[in-house]
């Protein structure tokens, strides 16, 4: 199997940068890291096809099987790209929600870990019922894109149901 050294190096650099970014606290960086690592894995798949050959469509029956490019990694790669794409979209939504709730995209210290470090028992926060307003995606009056007519939120608002 012959591999392109450039692609191998690119893949290694992508993996390294991606893993570095995923270890950061900021969620945005984690997503960027995931994108890099995902692409590195995709690159690895395509590298595993080996040397490039002619397109894997049998037009000349006389051609030797070894002359064709291996088509399977390309099929795997396409699936993997779609999955990476969908998951990144979900991650971005998650970050946006996290930012809306906390106005920060950093990951908090775990309350349990903090308690363990300081040697204190965690005192349960009593009687602070979760704010109902935070449990639903309420339309933002300043944001014209939010209350799109026909969506569930818009309908609920039209019916005058408030929480």
């Amino acid at each position, binding site marked *: 199997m012959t591999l392109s050294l450039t692609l191998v190096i690119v893949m290694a650099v992508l993996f390294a940068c991606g893993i570095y970014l995923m270890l950061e606290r900021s969620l945005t960086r984690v997503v960027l890291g*995931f994108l890099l690592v995902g692409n590195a894995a995709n690159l690895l798949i395509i590298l595993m096809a080996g040397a490039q050959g002619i397109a894997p469509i049998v037009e000349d029956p006389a051609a030797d099987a070894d002359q064709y490019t291996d088509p399977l990694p390309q099929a795997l790669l396409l699936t993997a790209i779609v999955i990476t794409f*969908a*998951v990144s979209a*979900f991650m971005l939504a998650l970050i946006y929600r996290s930012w809306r709730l906390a106005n920060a995209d950093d990951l908090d210290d775990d309350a349990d870990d903090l*308690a363990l470090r300081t040697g204190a028992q965690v005192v349960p926060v009593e009687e602070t019922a979760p704010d109902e307003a935070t449990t639903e995606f309420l339309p933002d009056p300043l944001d014209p894109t939010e209350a799109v007519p026909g969506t569930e939120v818009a309908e609920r608002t039209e019916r005058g149901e408030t929480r």
Partner: protein
Amino acid sequence: MTAELGVLVPLAVLIPLVAAGVTLVVGRRARAQRIVALIALVAVVLVGATLLMGVDAGGSVVVEVGSWQAPFGIVLVVDRLSALMVLISAIVLLAVLVFSIGQGLADGDDETPVSIYYPTYLILTTGVMIAFVAGDLFNLYVGFEVLLVSSYVLITLGGTESRIRAGVTYVVVSLVSSVLFLTAIAMVYGALGTVNLAQIAIRIADIPIDTQIVLHVMLLVAFGIKAAVFPLSFWLPDSYPSAPAPVTAAFAGLLTKIGVYAIIRVETVIFPGEELNPALMVLALLTMVVGALGAVAQADIKRILSFTLVSHIGYMILGVALGTAEGTAAAVYYIAHHIVVQTTLFLAAGLIEREAGSTSISRIGGLLASAPLVALLFFIPALNLGGIPPFSGFIGKLALFQATAAQGDALAYILLGGGALVSLLTLYALVRVWNLAFWRGADEVERGSSRLLKHVNEAPLDTSTISGARTTPFLMTASTAGMVIVSVALTVFAGPLYGVAERAGENLDGPGRYVLSIFPSGTEPNSTDVIEEVLDR
């Protein structure tokens, strides 16, 4: 016979997938969504039951999708292990669906945004089924991704702060495991030129042993994160308890077991060698002990259950790590038992939360008097999980310990002792829940803390309030009771069921039979390589 069964295999995947589409279309009508989801899951249970009976009688069913001959096309393989897993998970998913319908009806769908919940849940079912019937590594990866992405949605359902926080941990950890799995698939393809499990099994002997170990470890780490094997289990007790009760129940019962299922496939079909078995046994012991100690230190019932979940994964890994037919059989039976019992316990915890308004054992009490039925529904699976005879937990542990003792070396006996100790610790953690939440009078809760609460930790960010008893809908109790009956049935019908597990174990004793079911001649087409295990038989 096999031809008709072959039709059923894609149905196990297609029914929930189509139903998910239908529930999306009728998204405005919650009632129609519920009916479609219920019909779909009942159908999947029936498909699972037929598959198990057919496969147990007539041997593995192999479906070549689109009639493309293996290894060129995609194969779906249902052997006894897959069929058993399909049936048990379909039953569990159905019970959890009924529970969540009951909860949704009573809560006016506060917690479950109605238009999203049912389609996502059905897609989760689809993913689980794809993973169980997959005959190649990449299809397994696709199944994992389908179920993981829907689990990301379910765990952050409603988008409250605590769920987003727990969800972020869960999503990032799962992503790491997925990327690792994908990288491992690329490596396997690079080394062997195939992702078909049977073909990998044939070709694996041709590559050097150190390359084999690298591939083996990569796959094990990827699946170990999903199965929550120590030290890759850190994420589980933090993320599962924050999801809605029925979602936690389904996740706890199923998702980790799919990781264990994948580990069984890796250990029996791809790498039947014994290089890593001692390491796996040590990890099994650590998983058991660390999980059980975690359970003992918790005050929140859901967190206690999450830690016992981690610790009992250790038992299954132990069965797999033995590398014998008996060990695999015991692990298979234990998985079936544990899926059912762990889900039942989480559903019971959902009932407790509803009756008492909290799941912290330091703040609730007197449930035996106020809700005797819930007490019964918690008590039976608790004893079952602790391994008290005659329940299925005891039978599973007994089989595991016998298989371990048959191994006979020092490490096996250490694991035997560890397993017995962990079973006691599990019992201790659950009996303490019983003592405090059920036996303790409601007046004692206000009088102050019990000595049993001395060393336990409250859940962080516990903002739940004791809201007083709400009426528990009939469906919630009924589905939990149904699960308790299923778990008792695992005990009553332990004979035939263990027979299936034993035959599944024999089937998985080395890759030979798995390969023969896909390549009946024992060789790949256009190849003269025959693996030794096939020739041995």
